[in-house]
């Protein structure tokens, strides 16, 4: 074999499998709509395109089993979208299984394994039954309305395919397209050999042939364009022209195969029925007045870019933000009167940098829909398995969040949904006995709130059994017997490492992923998870995640000689407390009274052991911040140094995790400042107060 290194299929294969994953997810989502009756004719077309695209790519890589199955699937979809078969709930179920099996073939092709010869044969038989119109199971009483069939009519098309020299190297063989095209109707092929060079001058990897096809079909232009969707534009020049007018088929002719063929256009005689694909001599371009010329081919409005390239761009923008901050700091001594151009230029630079940063982040942003699309299936399958009744309500699927965050969220979200179904939602009879509807509801919601993404998984189940959780925690040695814990503290125990017990592990929830792993996964992407639960009414898991992992708006604060950054989105207000506002309560510690509320006061200098800081509450500044759970705390700092956009540098990967610190950043003067983790500070503050309280009691006892 040739050892030409330039011919590397693996790169194209990787892209193909990436596309397959997206297409299968889209297909699953579409089938879910068809299943619950909210689907439309567009959904059937979309599903067809998904299967068709997977088949097309599979053919290019000679994944024969995959292509064969996809072909049957695609043909059944075609029968549905043309109205030749009816979309009943039973048929929709077959489509779900069809998509699963197609996924099996894709994974097998990706892993290079061969599936058993009869893999998916049952599903294939069901799909074939859709095509033949012989239902393999009785139809349901209330069929989902199938979209109306398109008017069956024949049109003659002239299609010219002139591959670019490099087309074959991209894994696209014209042969596969020709085979697919011929499947659309009666076709005549004329090859053009005029570009074929002498053997000695030939590069065997280049494409030299071109073709003109005359196709008589009842399919539309879209079907023809789909055949060339992988090559039109960059890899080949594709022209699709309609010849003459559409000839309507006679009534009752089903597929239209037996309808009289349309009058043969002079330039494109209808091929004889006995030779569907026959050789012909090249002929000149025809049909001057025949419809609109599709010379522009098929355009795509998006491009696929390697993630590394985007990440490099994100990093460079991060560096740019730092440089811009540095320039701003250097020029802070200049007034607009003395250096108008410089000051104005720096302001514009700041403005443009921010816009650039937002645009770059938008490239990485993806709707959480990709994440949510698996949920309906999960709920359906699991509730059936557990003998429970549950419906899923989703909202905010279009909310966008960074791709990395989405990837990291997949497992935790799946686990939370499993958990809600397994431990939250009760059995139907139990629900009815408690005056609830037999069918439980799981609500999956996403929204943007104060510069973060909040994802909530809530259910109307029985809520957390705090008594049992506490018993379990004592049993596991996580808390001491007799310890007084608040409801909230007990609820949070479920996230403690080692809380998951063998008794709790079922084949549903117990997949080796405890709630502590859920929390860790979320923390890894700078997020937090809290749980709110009302006994008998249900639980709500709130996941708060950063929109982006690269840049954020922060408030620079000083504590002694140290500089810290507080995420701007956490800050509610700042104030210099009066002696009346700052108090110390027994068993609680320092608090701040603010408009009738008590807010826990946390002294940052105390927490981080900083000297030379202001220790008197009334001389320092208190920044009131809000955690994701909605709690407010006051942080005592020396002063506020100003608002600033900061580039987030991971402390975990560059140093090690530090409690109370979420990340680090580089300031304009080159100094490193730590970014405070407000949620963690609250916990640390409570612990410190408790320790100080116990020490004080100990000291009194000693006296």
């Amino acid at each position, binding site marked *: *074999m*040739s*050892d*030409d290194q330039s*011919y590397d299929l693996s790169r194209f294969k990787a892209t193909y499998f990436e596309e397959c994953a997206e297409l299968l997810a889209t297909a699953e989502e579409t089938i879910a709509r068809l299943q619950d009756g909210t689907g439309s004719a567009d959904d059937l077309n979309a599903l067809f395109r998904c299967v068709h695209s997977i088949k097309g790519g599979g053919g290019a890589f*000679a994944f024969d089993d995959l292509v064969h199955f996809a072909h049957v699937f695609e043909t059944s979809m075609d029968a549905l979208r043309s109205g030749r078969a009816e979309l009943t709930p039973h048929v929709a179920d077959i489509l779900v299984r069809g998509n699963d099996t197609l996924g099996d073939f894709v994974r097998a092709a990706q892993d290079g394994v061969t599936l058993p010869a009869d893999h998916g044969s049952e599903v294939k038989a069901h799909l074939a039954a859709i095509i033949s119109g012989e239902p393999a199971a009785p139809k349901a009483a209330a069929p989902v309305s199938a979209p109306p069939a398109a008017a069956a009519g024949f049109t003659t098309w002239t299609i010219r395919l002139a591959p670019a020299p490099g087309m*074959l*190297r991209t894994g696209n*063989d*014209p*042969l596969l397209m*020709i*085979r697919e095209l*011929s499947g659309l109707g009666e076709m005549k*092929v*004329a*090859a053009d*050999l005029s570009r*074929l*060079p*002498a*053997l*000695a001058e*030939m590069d*065997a*990897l280049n*494409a*030299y*042939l071109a*073709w003109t096809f005359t196709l008589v079909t009842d399919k539309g232009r879209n079907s023809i364009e789909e055949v060339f969707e992988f090559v039109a534009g960059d890899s080949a020049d594709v022209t699709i022209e309609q010849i003459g007018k559409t000839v309507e088929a006679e009534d009752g002719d089903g597929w239209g195969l037996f309808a009289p063929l349309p009058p043969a256009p002079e330039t494109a005689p209808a091929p004889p029925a006995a030779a569907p*694909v*026959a*050789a*012909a001599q090249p002929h000149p371009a025809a049909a001057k007045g025949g419809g609109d010329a599709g010379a522009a081919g098929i355009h795509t409005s998006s491009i696929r870019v390697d993630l590394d390239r985007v990440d490099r761009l994100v990093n460079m923008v991060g560096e740019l933000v730092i440089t811009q901050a540095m320039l701003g700091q250097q020029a802070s001594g200049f007034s607009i009167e003395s250096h108008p151009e410089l000051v104005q230029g720096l302001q514009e630079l700041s403005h443009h940098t921010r816009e650039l940063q937002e645009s770059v982040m938008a490239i990485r942003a993806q709707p959480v829909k990709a994440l949510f699309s698996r949920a309906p299936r999960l709920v359906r399958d699991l509730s059936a398995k557990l003998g429970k009744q549950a419906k899923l309500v989703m909202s905010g699927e279009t909310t966008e969040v960074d791709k990395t965050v989405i990837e990291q969220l997949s497992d935790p979200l799946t686990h939370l949904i499993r958990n809600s179904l397994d431990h939250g939602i009760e059995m139907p009879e139990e629900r009815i006995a408690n005056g609830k509807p037999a069918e439980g509801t799981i609500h999956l919601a996403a929204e943007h709130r104060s510069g973060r993404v909040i994802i909530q998984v809530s259910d109307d189940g029985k809520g957390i059994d705090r008594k049992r959780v506490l018993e379990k925690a004592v049993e596991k040695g996580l808390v001491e017997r007799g310890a007084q814990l608040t409801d909230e503290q007990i609820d949070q125990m479920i996230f403690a490492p080692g809380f998951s017990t063998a008794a709790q592990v079922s084949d549903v929830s117990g997949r080796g992923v405890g709630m502590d792993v859920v929390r860790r996964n979320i923390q890894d992407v700078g997020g937090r998870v809290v749980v709110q639960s009302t006994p008998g009414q249900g639980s709500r898991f709130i996941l708060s995640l950063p929109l982006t992992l690269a840049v954020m708006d922060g408030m620079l604060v000083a504590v002694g000689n140290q500089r810290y950054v507080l995420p701007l989105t956490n800050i509610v207000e700042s104030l210099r407390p009066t002696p009346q506002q700052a108090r110390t309560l027994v068993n609680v510690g320092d608090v701040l009274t603010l408009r009738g509320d008590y807010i826990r006061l946390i002294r940052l200098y105390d927490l981080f052991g900083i000297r030379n800081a202001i220790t008197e509450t009334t001389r320092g500044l208190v920044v009131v911040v809000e955690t994701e759970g909605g709690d407010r705390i006051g942080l005592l700092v020396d002063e506020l140094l100003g608002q600033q956009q900061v580039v987030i540098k991971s402390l975990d990967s560059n140093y090690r995790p530090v409690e109370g610190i979420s990340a680090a950043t580089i300031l304009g003067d080159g100094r490193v400042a730590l970014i405070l983790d407000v949620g963690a500070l609250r916990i640390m503050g409570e612990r410190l107060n408790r320790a100080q309280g116990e020490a004080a009691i100990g000291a009194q006892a000693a006296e």
Partner: protein
Amino acid sequence: MDLRESNGRIEIDLPVLIDLPASAELRDLLLDALARDAASDVVLKAQAVERMSTACVQVVLAAAVGFRGAARRMEIEGAGPAVTETFTQLGLAAELQKLI
């Protein structure tokens, strides 16, 4: 893929799958054959072929023109359904007829 001289003719056994890299190899072999003994006919033995790419068909067509120009003959021996269908689907059935 090997080039073999036997009984005054040059034979090349085509593999089961003639994909893009195999087409490049075939081109090199055919160029070699074209440069060899000016009297020998060239036979492409296609009994084993199960799948043929467009790239391979191009090479065969260009070689056929080359041999014809050199007043030599190149033929395909044992062309099965895979070969016939490939040429036919590409609109080149007539070209194949000249080679078998």
